[in-house]
């Protein structure tokens, strides 16, 4: 497969997953805002700050908007053309990459993506709020799910498909760490007794933002607890949005691409992925909590970045050897 094609498939997939996750992050925070007892500007601003930090650029945001309110943050993270990672930009870049590899993906994938893209044209915050922000974010999530489902059902599961998986799982793992990081305050320390009700609401919102609410309920029958939420989203082996699940899937796809057998590696990307996955498999939740949620998330993000770079160097841009 052409290196450029691998690169485009990878980014096509990352941008779609990114759009979905930004919708998730926005959605959970909007729920927090709605649950506030007092809607004071300062509190609302404080609530949005971690979201802006983890999904976009806070400085860029304040260049364009005076106040962090639901409307302005939604505008920035959903529609703003100057924000590289706004949802609409992500879908545009996703489609742009797909156009580059139009002949590699199935007609069904292209048509669905094209339809999704065309539907997002001419959108305004007003329209989003009128239909209900949660409805809109659900629409983005379903669009992504539909695209990923069509991809699985209609594209040959060969090398190109594996690059799509690689992009999807790196992005998902990265954004999941950001969801956890943005909610670090809720997750790090058990709430004092009086705040229990609020804490439960917030934890439930975090679970829902990862589509993990009912899956969590099935594993942990008891009430929702910080430690267990963290454990579930980070370390669960079977839940497809947990970080450990993502690193495992990443490991499998990378080795399928190179042909390396299990428990071995043939390049840096595989080595780094294997290492991260082992860390997640052998570190218990207590180790992570004692290390600190925020520090752990930073560390995972750093490792994911290194994996991304290693993939790029191995497959997408390599020094051309001189042939004889």
């Amino acid at each position, binding site marked *: 497969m052409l290196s450029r094609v691998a690169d485009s498939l990878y980014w096509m997939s990352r941008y779609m997953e990114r759009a979905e996750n930004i919708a998730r992050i926005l959605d959970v925070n909007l729920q927090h805002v709605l649950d506030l007892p007092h809607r004071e500007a300062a509190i609302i601003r404080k609530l949005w700050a971690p979201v802006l930090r983890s999904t976009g650029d806070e400085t860029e945001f304040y260049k364009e908007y005076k106040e962090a309110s639901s409307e302005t943050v939604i505008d920035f993270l959903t529609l703003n053309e100057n924000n590289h990672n706004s949802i609409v930009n992500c879908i545009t870049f996703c489609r742009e990459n797909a156009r580059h590899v*139009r*002949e590699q993906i199935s007609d069904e994938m292209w048509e669905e993506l094209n339809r999704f893209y065309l539907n997002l044209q001419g959108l305004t915050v007003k329209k989003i709020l009128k239909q209900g922000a949660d409805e809109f974010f659900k629409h983005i999530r379903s669009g992504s799910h539909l695209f990923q489902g069509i991809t699985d059902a209609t594209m040959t599961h060969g090398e190109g498909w594996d690059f799509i998986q690689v992009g999807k799982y790196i992005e998902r793992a990265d954004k999941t760490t950001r969801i956890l990081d943005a909610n670090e305050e809720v997750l790090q320390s058990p709430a004092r007794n009086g705040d229990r009700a609020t804490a439960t609401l917030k934890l439930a919102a975090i679970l829902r933002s990862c589509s993990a609410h009912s899956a969590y309920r099935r594993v942990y029958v008891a009430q929702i607890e910080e430690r267990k939420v963290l454990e579930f989203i980070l370390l669960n082996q079977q839940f497809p949005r947990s970080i450990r699940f993502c690193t495992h899937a990443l490991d499998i796809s990378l080795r399928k691409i190179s042909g390396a057998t299990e428990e071995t590696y043939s390049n840096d990307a595989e080595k780094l992925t294997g290492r991260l996955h082992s860390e997640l498999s052998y570190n218990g939740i207590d180790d992570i909590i004692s290390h600190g949620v925020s520090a752990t998330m930073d560390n995972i993000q750093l490792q994911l970045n290194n994996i991304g770079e290693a993939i790029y160097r191995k497959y997408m841009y390599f020094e051309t050897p001189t042939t004889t």
Partner: protein
Amino acid sequence: MIGTMALLDKYQPEEFFDEMFEAPHKVRPHYMELFERIQALEPEEFEQRRQAVDASFLRQGITFTVYSDERGTERIFPFDLMPRIIPASEWEFLERGLTQRIIALNKFLHDIYHDQRILKEGLIPKDIVYGAKHFRPEFMNFNVPRDIYIHICGSDLVRDDSGTYYVLEDNGRSPSGVSYLLENRQAMKRAFPNLFDRIRVRPVDHYPEELLNMLKYIAPPSKANPTVVLLTPGIYNSAYFEHSFLARQMGIEIVEGRDLTVQGDRVYMRTTKGLQQVDTIYRRIDDDFLDPEVFRKDSVLGVPGLVRAYRAGNISLANSIGTGVADDKVMYYYVPQMIKFYLGEEPILKNVPTYLGSNESDRKYILENMPKLVVKSANESGGYGMLVGNKATRAELAEFKAKVQADPRNFIAQPILALSRHPSYCDGKFEGRHIDLRPYILYGEKITIVPGGLTRVALRKGSLVVNSSQGGGSKDTWVLSGDH
């Protein structure tokens, strides 16, 4: 019809040659079946099918890029649901004419890059060839693979008010539009599946296969199973949809310049498994941009070293380098002479009468009669760099006069033809609109022309310009297996 008008009841062919109607309400025999089917449709039904087809083009991203917008806006190429029909005998005549023409053009290119007999015998002035923008003296005495220069040719045909066919121009560099021909047929089959049961329309779907056969045929001879790629300038090119469409249909890689590298005079593509050698490039990039080592230094679309590999015989290109000289509208003037000179035959297809700016008496005629003429710059395409005299303002006429006087070699003029018209669906009813026809000719082991071609239609009322950049659309073109 119960109280309602059928779609073509009010249609007026007016004073033009109408493809469908011999006279008001008198349908030509090869259109009879189609006419009856269209008349039987409720206007609403026709409109619904039209909207469904448009929506499906947009959904599938069958679009071209409009350059005036920096973000590269995509538009659908308007598609007119009323097909154009060519009876078998007429097509057989066109096919013979086009075949004769492409053979002569290839012999001409071989000649001017070798012995230059046609120049020595004085049939074409030497400075016209040497002054042609796309003449490549660097390739003198170079032998192109299989001695074929133009592998893919799109020749534009028009008919005048008596129905006589003329060749308007030959596109021997990288003609576009064939993907619309193929997609239009698919769209028609979806919109009117039953029509194809009754009318015997010759298929066109084998074009990609014939194209691939040709590209394999011209590959360097040592290769048993050659690797063929399509080289595109990238997704912002107006014809990118077509490039990716053809690559998909042929099952070959579509590459950009940056995907290729030349090592030891061989061309390789960068893949996830390392470098893989390429044998034939179907390039959709002009000569000027192919190789910054030889042509334009600022080109980022091309591949440094490609020409070295080409000269070494390690890579084949379609079309060959230097074919643009045959595209020059001044050279067009000489095609009938070429046919006589190289083949000893009379031209089967006519040229439109042409006046050359470089010829003194012609130039005088052009300058004095400009309102009656179409004036064209010798090396522009896409409907740019031309003036339709009777539609031009005084200022435009003056501007073109000055241009012709300043650079006579690069201008030609032709009488304004009353191009044939075809019923076309405009704003809820059928009206006559001017059309042309671009058949695609493939020259490989044999010469293949898919039946028909792309019929382009000038959808603006009264307009003679069919180019998509100038408000043109297209129709499906049906060549019948018989004459009715």
